[in-house]
């Protein structure tokens, strides 16, 4: 059996009376993206910081690639790259200077750190801006530089704390590609996120954390099945024909759909996403004119509702905008 990239048992972190992390167990197989999903204040950052030697562990134990985090932090630091929730690069230096400095600090010679910096700048599409002071960088550029700075020694394990929060959809997509690329090159990635769709896109396994405890773990598919299926929403141009449409949907899916109050909308749960096409074709053949059609994935809120019996507390996870 291969050694897990991360093996944590009973992790606890207290801040005064708050048990920010309250007995979390994690086993993360190497060579995959592992997602840690949870709302604001769930304890994601705290968990990651303990695993990355940035915070002391109050109780429990953790190993990174078989090396004890509390006993041998210096060795663990040689095995990991960390990109925190907030950019951890020097604002006063340029991108190139930052990467060279971190290379020098990790024992690269002057020329090796310069070459490595140029490699990474190229790979993260920052070459053109390499000599600009970071104060002029956009959020996305800063994030990319931050990630580049974590990869100087090509560490086998990379921690990413909310790598895409605050990024626009295009930049987010680029970040996803970069993360996939990392895993292809043999690294293990542990990332936290507030978005189920992000975990779904990237992670082969997900742990859901709420109030310092792990409330579920599984593949994205397993988690979504916990919540239930996704749903098909169709809106008719002619509200009067909605009952007719509902009948067709019921015939195709074998389950009665619900009608919205204004009765122009039909919502059906989809045990299998492939059936959506069948429904749409049947509606078309009946000559029903659709104003819109969409398939909605279960949201993080629904996952939480299903797992904890209560909605995500505090601010809704989706309208969070953290730099």
């Amino acid at each position, binding site marked *: 059996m291969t*050694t897990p990239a991360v093996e944590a048992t009973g992790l606890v972190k207290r801040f005064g009376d708050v048990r920010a992390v309250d007995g979390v167990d994690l086993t993360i197989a190497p060579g995959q993206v592992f997602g840690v999903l949870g709302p604001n204040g769930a304890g994601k950052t705290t968990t990651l910081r303990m695993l*990355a*030697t*940035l*915070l*002391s562990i109050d109780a429990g134990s953790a*190993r990174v*690639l*078989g*090396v*004890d985090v509390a006993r*041998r932090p*210096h*060795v663990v*630091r*040689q*095995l*990991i790259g*960390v990109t*925190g929730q*907030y*950019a*951890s*690069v*020097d*604002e*006063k*230096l340029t991108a190139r*200077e930052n990467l060279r*400095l*971190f290379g*020098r*600090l*990790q*024992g690269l*010679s*002057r020329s*090796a750190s310069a070459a490595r910096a140029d490699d990474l700048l190229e790979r993260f599409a920052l070459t053109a801006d390499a000599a600009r002071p970071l104060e002029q960088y956009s959020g996305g550029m800063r994030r990319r530089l931050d990630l580049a*700075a974590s990869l100087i020694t090509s560490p*086998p394990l990379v921690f990413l704390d909310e790598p895409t929060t605050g990024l626009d959809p295009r930049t987010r997509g680029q970040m996803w590609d970069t993360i996939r690329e990392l895993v292809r090159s043999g690294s293990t990635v542990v990332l936290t996120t507030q978005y189920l769709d992000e975990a779904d896109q990237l992670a082969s396994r997900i742990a859901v954390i709420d109030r310092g405890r792990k409330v579920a773990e599984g593949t994205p598919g397993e988690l979504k099945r916990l919540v239930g299926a996704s749903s098909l929403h169709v809106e008719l141009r002619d509200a009067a024909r909605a009952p007719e449409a509902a009948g067709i949907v019921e015939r195709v899916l074998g389950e009665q759909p619900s009608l919205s109050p204004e009765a122009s909308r039909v919502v059906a749960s989809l045990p299998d996403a492939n059936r959506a096409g069948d429904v749409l074709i049947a509606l078309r053949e009946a000559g029903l004119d659709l104003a819109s059609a969409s398939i909605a994935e279960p949201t993080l809120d629904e996952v939480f509702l299903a797992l904890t019996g209560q909605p995500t507390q505090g601010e809704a996870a989706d309208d969070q905008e953290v730099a």
Partner: protein
Amino acid sequence: MSTTADSRPDTLAPTEDGLSRLVAEGHDLRPRVTFAETVSQTFALAGRSVTTMRRNADQLFDVTFQPLLFTAMFAYIFGGAISGDVRSYLPLLIPGVLAQSTLTACMATGVQLREDMEKGVFDRFTSLPIARIAPLAGPALADLLRYALAAVLTVAAGLAMGFRPGGGVLGVLAGGALIMFAGWSLAWIFTWFGTVASSARAVQGYSMMILFPLTFLSNAYVPTDTLPGWLRAFVHVNPVSHIVSGVRDLMNDGAVTAQVGWAVLGCVVVAAIFLPLSVRSYARHL
């Protein structure tokens, strides 16, 4: 001080549980930071501080304008009263201003460290496999440049006003070296404040509280024989007085006196106490 991949000493013996496999898989892992690595990391971080200093030249105000101002101001205000005329006050005054400017510059070391620690980049320093002392020792090393700048400007201002140090070039250089060493060691007091205080403002507050008594309740600006007894007693144990006396002896007489010895000893003691305290408190912060 280059540590290339193949010359890294102290590679882990493949006996350590969990590590043996990693080492066998070809990971180049070191069990702890070596002295050579610590030195190289300290220099890398000193380089970072120097770059930052160069880009924010306005922050050098305390080591440029202030020493010039103090030299001129004190010389003309106190010169006549204390020594009869400005020129004969300068041998007394210049070492005093040197000590005052250096201590003020030390204070900035602590304040800047605190500000720096609140920035994200310190998180990265923490997560890197580097010596815990390097993020503190790097800026401390770079600040030697600030002390040197203050010293050069103060002495130059003195020379322009008619200061003719009896110790000659060597004496002045030796005095400058002593004041820089004093700056380096006293800065660890303020560095420690930086690691324990809750904010940069608090560091500034604590620092002022000890900076004023240390500099003004010393022999930096006045001869001590007219002071009341209790004050004289404090002035005599104040390490700053010994530093000032040591610098005077070196610059004015070219003599390595007992005062120089006391000054060096005092500085060594301060560093021996506050350097480990700072590193410990910084490492605990994590």
